């Protein structure tokens, strides 16, 4: 069984984000990248499936600073093949273009199961999985938290708002958008990652036919703006408390 996991890196929120002078993109100069958390869960789910019933795990990651470390870490966890796909410099592929480009690569890998994070925090509308499934002519199920496979089908637990969980069957090959792996992503010791760096190889493949069409143009990117409705209460603790009580009484809360 071939399990393909799609991975991308997203801005690490440990650093404050700033907008570049164009006003439509993040300033890349201080940007730190980290694996998309949901993709990390997708890797873990793939490794758990491999450990449970065998198979080959192939990681396909979009080129970005630090992606090699992400791939070697996946190898140290048990991934069998590492593929890095190049994004054209400056092209900033939107998710529609990315899904088109990835579809050609994933098809060649003849997957039984494709796992991807259900969304990424730098877009949040989660289109890559469903778009990719459409291009590949495969079924798609998103917001999945737990998968088991049997010949020709996968059984996935899908989370709904309000704590409702459905168990659904999906014919394979198919694409799953992973919300959470059955277990939290495991720790892999630095020495094991180093070992993987010595033994594993990263294949590079171009993202063919990448064009920017299909995506939404960004009109303006901006930091949350302070609202006029907020009132800052100044003063010492006693003073602030007294004013707060006054405001609450006026509002009829007290």
């Amino acid at each position, binding site marked *: 069984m071939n399990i393909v996991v799609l991975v991308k890196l997203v801005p690490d929120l*440990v*650093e*404050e984000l700033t907008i570049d002078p164009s006003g439509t993109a993040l300033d890349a100069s*201080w940007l730190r990248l*980290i694996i998309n958390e949901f993709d990390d869960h997708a890797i873990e789910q793939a490794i758990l499936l491999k450990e449970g019933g065998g198979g080959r795990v192939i990681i396909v990651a979009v080129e970005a600073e630090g992606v090699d470390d992400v791939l070697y870490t996946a190898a140290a966890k048990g991934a069998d093949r590492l593929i890095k796909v190049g994004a054209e410099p400056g092209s900033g592929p939107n998710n529609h273009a990315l899904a088109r480009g990835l579809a050609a690569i994933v098809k060649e890998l003849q997957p039984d199961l494709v796992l991807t994070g259900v969304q990424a925090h730098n877009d949040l509308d989660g289109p890559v999985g469903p778009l990719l499934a459409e291009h590949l002519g495969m079924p798609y199920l998103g917001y999945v938290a737990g998968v088991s496979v049997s010949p020709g089908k996968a059984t996935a637990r899908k989370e709904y708002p309000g704590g409702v969980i459905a168990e659904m069957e999906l014919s394979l090959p198919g694409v799953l958008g992973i919300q959470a792996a059955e277990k*939290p992503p*495991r*720790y*892999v*010791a*630095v*020495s*094991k*990652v*180093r070992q993987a760096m010595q033994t594993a190889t990263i294949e590079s493949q171009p993202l063919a036919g990448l064009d920017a069409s299909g995506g939404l143009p960004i009109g303006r990117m901006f930091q949350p703006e302070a609202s006029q409705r907020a009132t800052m209460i100044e003063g010492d603790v006693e003073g602030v408390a007294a004013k707060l009580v006054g405001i609450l009484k006026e509002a009829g809360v007290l």
Partner: protein
Amino acid sequence: MITLLRAEEFDQVMTSETVWMCLSCYACSQVCPAQIPLTASLMTRAKEELLLAGKVPAELQQALENSQRYGNVLGQSPRKRSDWAKGLIPPVAVLGKDKTSADFLWFVGDYPSYHARAQEASRALAKVFHRLGADFGILGPDEVSDGDSQRLAGERGLFEMLATKNGQAFHKHKFGAIVTSDPHAYNSFKNEYPALGISYPVLHHSEFLAQWLDQLRPLLTHEIKARVAYHDPCFLGRVNGVYDEPRAVLSAIPGVELVEMAHTRSTSICCGGGGGGMWLDGFQWEKAHTRTSEWRVQEAVAAGADVLAVACPYEPLRFEDAAKTVPGAGRLVVKDIAELLAESMGD
């Protein structure tokens, strides 16, 4: 666990979580009549094997991942490593930015750089260094965790990665020695880094201050009238034999009356932060429902101390937390020796 190992039942050791209760405090090694290196070899190696097998409590995993990714256990921005010193007058010099060389490099460490309570002790130490007219610099964002506690928690590879980064940063600058307030950084620079080809003279801040006692005394103008119990940190005392210097420094403060707790010097009780314990609080509480930091605070109360003086950045936060729950400890003040000196120096 030891019985299982002697019975060659290593598989059972690998299914047990008991080893994560070990604080790497060296108390057992200290008293072992057969002088078996229990902490350095047995416990640390068992943790290494569990870690290689991916069996690590979630709290500890987070700290280790943070160390890998950001170079500090707290998961903070590496760029903000010297933000604790912002606004200090005179400013704290960053080597390579504000000056090219210094008499000594102050290795600040993770908690003193990022943790709000430990930062207070860092600012106090900066004041003490400045008042002494000492010539020093810090590494700023080039500094990463010393890695000692991660090593004792079984992550040898991570320790080597961090040590290599620090070694490269040290190599870029000219300084005579390293001074640090962190007994774990002190221990790693003294006993572990040299094997990796990184070798510098190192002083704990208590040793440095003891060397400067003659210059220090005239600056200690404000009386601190208090009974002070000094807590020996495991990696300063038991592991590296530094017992007298912190006491000498504290004794120089006018008004201070030193008292000793029931466990003192080589029998000191661990604050609970060692060997990964700093990141296993929830895990260990679930298993044991007790904390060594609380035992220690009870001892301070029993000794009639007003102040529990410490010399390790793990301790103010741990003991202050413990003092909130230990009966009779409500008025116990926990201070790093640098904070007491800064207080005695006045404004």
